């Protein structure tokens, strides 16, 4: 495995030119904060729900290029999707990061570029951070809540 597997040009591009990165989203229905204390990654994710779909999504945070770029790519991949579909896509991403094959390759959009991260076990958590925050935001919303904080080991 080479560094280019990890830091694909697409990833560096999301890192340098983040999409949907913002410290707020007005209005939003749910806000989650996830952190990875081991690496010092912190992520805020805000979601607006429209007719059962992801109407708008914004992230902000402090973390390594992999975690921030992955969150950025995630926001593009899930925008406009049905909530259940977005959740399914997050699961596809999770499986890919655990080396269990690539499903829904076309739907993941730039998310596919993170495939190579699976070869760097210590960085897998970084790539997952945004997607796990999304899953949690969907879950939190489905339970009628608006805020949630999660800390990974």
């Amino acid at each position, binding site marked *: 495995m080479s560094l280019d597997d990890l830091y694909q040009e697409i990833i560096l591009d999301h890192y340098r030119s983040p999409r949907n990165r913002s410290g707020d989203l007005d209005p939003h229905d749910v806000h989650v904060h996830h952190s990875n*204390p*081991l690496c010092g990654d912190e992520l805020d994710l805000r979601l607006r729900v429209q007719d059962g779909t992801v109407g708008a999504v914004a992230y902000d945070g402090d973390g390594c290029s992999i975690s921030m770029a992955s969150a950025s790519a995630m926001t593009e991949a899930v925008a406009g999707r049905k909530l259940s579909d977005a959740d399914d896509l997050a699961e596809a991403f999770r499986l890919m990061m655990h080396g269990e094959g690539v499903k829904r390759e076309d739907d993941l959009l730039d998310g596919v570029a993170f495939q190579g991260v699976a070869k760097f*076990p*210590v*960085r897998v958590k970084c790539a997952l951070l945004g997607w796990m925050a999304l899953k949690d935001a969907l879950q939190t919303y489905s339970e009628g809540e608006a805020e949630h904080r999660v*800390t*990974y*080991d």
Partner: protein
Amino acid sequence: MLDVERVRKDFPLLERQVHGRRLVYLDSAATSQKPQSVLDAMTRYYETTNANVHRGVHALAEEATEAYESARNTVARFVCADPRGVVFTKNATEAFNLLAYSWARTRLGEGDILLSTQMEHHANLVPWQLVQPETGFDLRYVPMTAGGLLDLDEFDAVVATGRVKLFTVTAMSNVVGTINPVRELAAKVRAANRDAVVVVDGAQSVPHLGTDMVDLDADFLCFSGHKMLGPTGIGVLAGRPDLLEAMPPFLGGGEMISNVTLEGTTYNEIPYKFEAGTPPIAEAVGLAAAVDYLSGLGMDAVRAHEVELLQTCIPALEAVEGVTVHGPTDPARRGAAVSFAIEGLHPHDIGTIMDREGVAVRAGHHCAKPLVRTLGSAATTRASFYLYNTTDEIQALVDAIEATKNFFKV
């Protein structure tokens, strides 16, 4: 069948001479010797991989973490445990203390019974005694008969109260060799109280007898690396993940935390929650190599070899005038730790003379004073065998006993 001459070649220490004689090492219940492959695995680790585990992004740290976690998997498989429930400790003793401080101290109170036995090693007695005053539980012991068996009537009587919340017992005695019917005892304890927790001391059984947590129906299993061909400085608490998850942490420090602020701390997931500080990394690698060595031979072959030794040893000892063997005499019911007495001689004197004959046995209470007292003395002499011992060495033991008797003219 185990080819004992080939096995012996793997153990460099067995070539040693003692007082000008070939060493006959009969003290494996105290600690075992180590095969070359275990020493090599640790040296190789230090020479090529050594780094601190977890959190590291550099290559060595990743390789060290991989080596450490793969050792955990190897050990888990060996005793049929869930790797998430395998906590590396410094020895079996720490594993019991972890349970005493983190489980017994927080789960038990007045009216609850913690049931241990009179056959236990101090490691399975003193930790419970230490936390008992804080919690006020009832600490009871199943008595041992003079024949070295648990008194099952007494056991049944205590269990019938329905108040036994934790039952702890050794799978194999380090003094009299007795193999206890753990599975049946566990079943009775659970029948009387569904929520009871069963702790098994595997310090002697894991090295000598295929030991399967599921088969034994144990919630927790404690054992030590150094008695099973592995290094000093490592032990294991294998436990049910759900129980471990519900327990508060024991030791605090690095690795076991999730987040630390000056106001408070959240804890890591298991097993890391219970592994504070830099763990015994090289020792885990060594222990995994020991497990590989044992698995390579097969625990059935190891046990069969020891049964064969016992079949020769016990009659041979009993044939010596004045010698009494403690504990069960049927090899099927016992392990290879054989305590005996010689009429008119004190174990200390026996040990000293035997040592001069090149035969290393242990004399004393073997960290099991309540048991030894039940045998009617303050000390025993113990010869304990392992996979590298031969029938010739049994003859050497018998000769040394005769030499001792001659020396003291008894």
